């Protein structure tokens, strides 16, 4: 069964304190892994797509990496505006569905 697990559920960081969010997945064959950001009361906003182990993508203070079993979202020197829920999703090669994890709620304290 295709499954996505994210950890931790919640993370509180001081402004400038770097950390990583984890997304582990089980999928019959991985077509793509996605990271989204979701602010309260809004729909998820796309951040990254990763396709193969070893791939990395960066955007401002965020960097996503992918291995054969998990992905990390590294946050370098976060700011309060980075506070949000970060969602991970996978899509298998065999289907058209996207499977989401439960998310990590990030709070960055000034």
């Amino acid at each position, binding site marked *: 069964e295709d499954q996505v697990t994210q950890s931790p559920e919640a993370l509180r960081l001081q402004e400038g304190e770097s950390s990583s969010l984890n997304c582990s997945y089980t999928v019959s064959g991985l077509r793509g892994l996605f990271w989204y950001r979701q602010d309260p009361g809004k*729909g998820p906003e*796309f951040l990254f797509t990763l396709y193969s182990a070893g791939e990395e993508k960066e955007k401002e203070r965020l960097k996503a990496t992918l291995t054969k079993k998990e992905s990390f979202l590294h946050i370098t020197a976060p700011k309060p505006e980075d506070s949000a829920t970060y969602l991970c999703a996978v899509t298998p090669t065999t289907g058209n569905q996207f499977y989401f994890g439960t998310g990590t709620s990030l709070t960055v304290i000034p």
Partner: protein
Amino acid sequence: NAGVTQTPKFRILKIGQSMTLQCAQDMNHNYMYWYRQDPGMGLKLIYYSVGAGITDKGEVPNGYNVSRSTTEDFPLRLELAAPSQTSVYFCATHRGLQPRATNEKLFFGSGTQLSVL
């Protein structure tokens, strides 16, 4: 371009009532999805469609119905609403799998918050 438009934004239903959640897109995407999001539970796929006239069940389809008569619209129907259907509903679109996997992503609407009392 409006992107993905969901209506209404909020709705309160009584148990047993029916309603349709609307989703419209102007991106000419073939793939459309309905998700529900409960607190701490992530996004669960209800139904999806890969093109007009084609729909398929997702992880949690019970209590819902969909239709896809045009590329632009993908309404979600709730029959006999139950308290368990209290949730936030998101519609999303995708241009479809490409021969070379690159920059694929879901585009989401802003959601419909539904309460069944």
